[in-house]
């Protein structure tokens, strides 16, 4: 697959069909009440997602990416957390207005989630088949036998070998990669509109990670599911997503298509992140010039209960000036479909 940049940009999603908006998140705000006071884990986050699209949300630990995912699923532990504002509109229904029983009918049915650690998110005392069929019996009203048939079919779809035997096994009998396949089978069994994948490959080895990412993309094309991919790994983003949101300290700081973000990152945080990852092959070409040093982002992510005035990234930012330290920059469209919140994005 070698072709010019322009061709790739035009054909990058392959046979992917991007449809209408299925999910619209508007001004989502989630707070936690802690001993250190109230913290805003998700601070007025908005985005939309179309059918068949993969939207990546990236950032370091504590940036609010997982909290955004859990807020969409309404799985924020309350107390101490609470969703205090915004809308999460899935096919015209605001999930935040639903009662808990109504929401339960959505979860695993219209919107599903897979987690980082497949061992802790599967029930250790139920067979894999029981766990997959439960969702089908609950949401689709299938009989136990029909649901088990469908569970076997789903395992075949996610390429688990010998699915008829595997449905009778318990999670501990499966490898990490197989467990994540089971999680995916379970999440997709009711053919949801949106799949939220929270660091789905972080706990896996690279060869298994490649298999699982490939599987998610293949199933997405087959089923037309929209995917929100939460990750800290920019390389995974580059290989799987069409659009990216970069988060820092609970807020969106940048948003663009994948090609645009990687070729023209605007926010200093995004630039810093990209420069700080060691890349395969980089040392071969640039070792002489750089002296082998990786670019560092000084300092660390500030705790949410102690955010600075103005831009939260200012204390670590080489471009920060008094303006940055005094006033949070507006979130603006700097190039077509490329948004960022930085006073110096035009420099």
């Amino acid at each position, binding site marked *: *697959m070698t072709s010019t940049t322009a061709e790739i940009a035009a054909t990058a999603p392959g046979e992917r069909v991007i449809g209408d908006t299925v999910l619209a998140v508007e001004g989502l705000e989630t707070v936690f009440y802690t001993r250190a006071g109230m913290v805003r884990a998700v601070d007025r986050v908005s985005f939309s997602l179309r059918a068949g699209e993969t939207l990546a949300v990236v950032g*370091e630990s504590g940036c609010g990416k997982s909290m955004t995912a859990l807020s969409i699923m309404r799985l924020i532990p309350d107390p101490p957390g609470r969703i205090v504002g915004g809308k999460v509109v899935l096919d015209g229904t605001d999930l935040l207005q639903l009662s808990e029983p109504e929401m339960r009918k959505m979860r695993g049915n219209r919107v599903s989630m897979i987690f980082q650690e497949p061992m802790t998110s599967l029930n250790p005392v139920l067979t894999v088949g029981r766990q997959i069929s439960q969702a089908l019996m609950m949401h689709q009203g299938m009989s136990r036998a029909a649901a088990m048939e469908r569970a076997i079919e789903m395992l075949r779809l996610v390429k688990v070998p010998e699915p008829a035997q595997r449905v009778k096994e318990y999670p501990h009998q499966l490898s990490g990669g197989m467990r994540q396949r089971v999680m995916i089978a379970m999440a997709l069994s009711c053919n949801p509109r949106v799949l939220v994948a929270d660091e789905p490959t972080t706990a896996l080895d690279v060869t298994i990670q*490649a298999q699982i990412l490939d599987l998610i993309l293949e199933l997405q094309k087959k089923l037309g599911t929209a995917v929100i991919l939460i990750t800290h790994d920019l390389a995974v983003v580059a290989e799987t997503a069409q659009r990216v949101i970069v988060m820092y300290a609970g807020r969106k700081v940048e948003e663009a298509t994948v090609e645009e973000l990687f070729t023209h990152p605007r926010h200093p945080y995004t630039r810093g992140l990209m420069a*700080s*990852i060691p890349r395969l092959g980089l040392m071969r070409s640039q070792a002489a010039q750089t002296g082998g040093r990786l670019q560092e982002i000084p300092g660390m992510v500030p705790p949410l209960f102690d955010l600075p005035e103005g831009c939260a990234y200012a204390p670590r930012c080489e471009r920060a000036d008094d303006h940055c330290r005094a006033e949070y920059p507006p979130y603006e469209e700097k190039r077509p479909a490329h948004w960022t919140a930085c006073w110096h994005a035009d420099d």
Partner: protein
Amino acid sequence: MPMTEIRNAQAAAAPVLQVDGLKKHFPIRKGLLRRTIGNVFAVDGVSFSIQPGETLGLVGESGCGKTTVGRTVLRLIEPTGGSIRVRGEDITQLSRKALRPYRREMQIVFQDPFSSLNPRMRAGDIVGEPMKIHGIGAEGGERARLVARLFERVGLRPQQMRNFPHEFSGGQRQRISIARALALNPKLIVADEPVSALDVSIQAQVINLMMDLQREEGIAYLFISHNLAVVEHISHRIAVMYLGRIVEYADKVTLFTRPQHPYTEALLSAVPVPDPLLKREKRMVEGDVPSPVRPPPGCHFHTRCPYAQDRCRIETPALKPVGEGHLVACHLR
């Protein structure tokens, strides 16, 4: 910097660490009498050497035995077979007491900066403890001065010596671990996934620190990691492990530009690349790593290898040279 020149200059010096045919089999016990019913072949005949000031990267997927290698060379785990030489001296059979002077020269940094520091000790005491054990800087405030210097060395403030581990972030804790490892001026540090638990922006800080220390103090590293990009960045030479054995061993440039073992090829191909414009043909390997309790006969990789032939299923390939300092264990090369 041209690596060959450095290595030629150091060729005369004895390796800091030389490991030959290292084996570690963990018995699996069962029942009332704890009878041994099998073995986990965690490390099954591994050989390598590390020169002063050099970094050997040890890569592989989980369960390949890389962590066991790291702990066995320090004799934190007793080897089942093979030999470990430190500057030419065989330490495999030494008693704990006789081992002590060698322990000073070899230190370890662990992956998890949360569980590897005693939460009830102050950071300064954690860093000073190796000196206390080895009776260094006992007079006056000498030890405190040494510890303060170590804090500065790793980018922490000496005022932070009084703080407890929970008051530090993950990256800072890893700096404390490194300061503790440096306390006895070691010749070798075994770094077991030292940056895997850290955020990317913090990873860069710790990697740079480790490379600076090597440049300035000539410390050698055995750098254990599953992250190939990090290993490529920091290592001079790299050993790729699969199910307890080294399958390929080469200098960095050779390994990453001309990998010879199908497993190395697959591993490199699986690493995602942070460039959306680069669309690569992926050479995906099927299936999972088999269990080290019942490793497949012959070449361990044959169950997942796209090129496997009958011979690979029966005969274990030896690690043999295919080029200058480039060893590969594959029948087809």
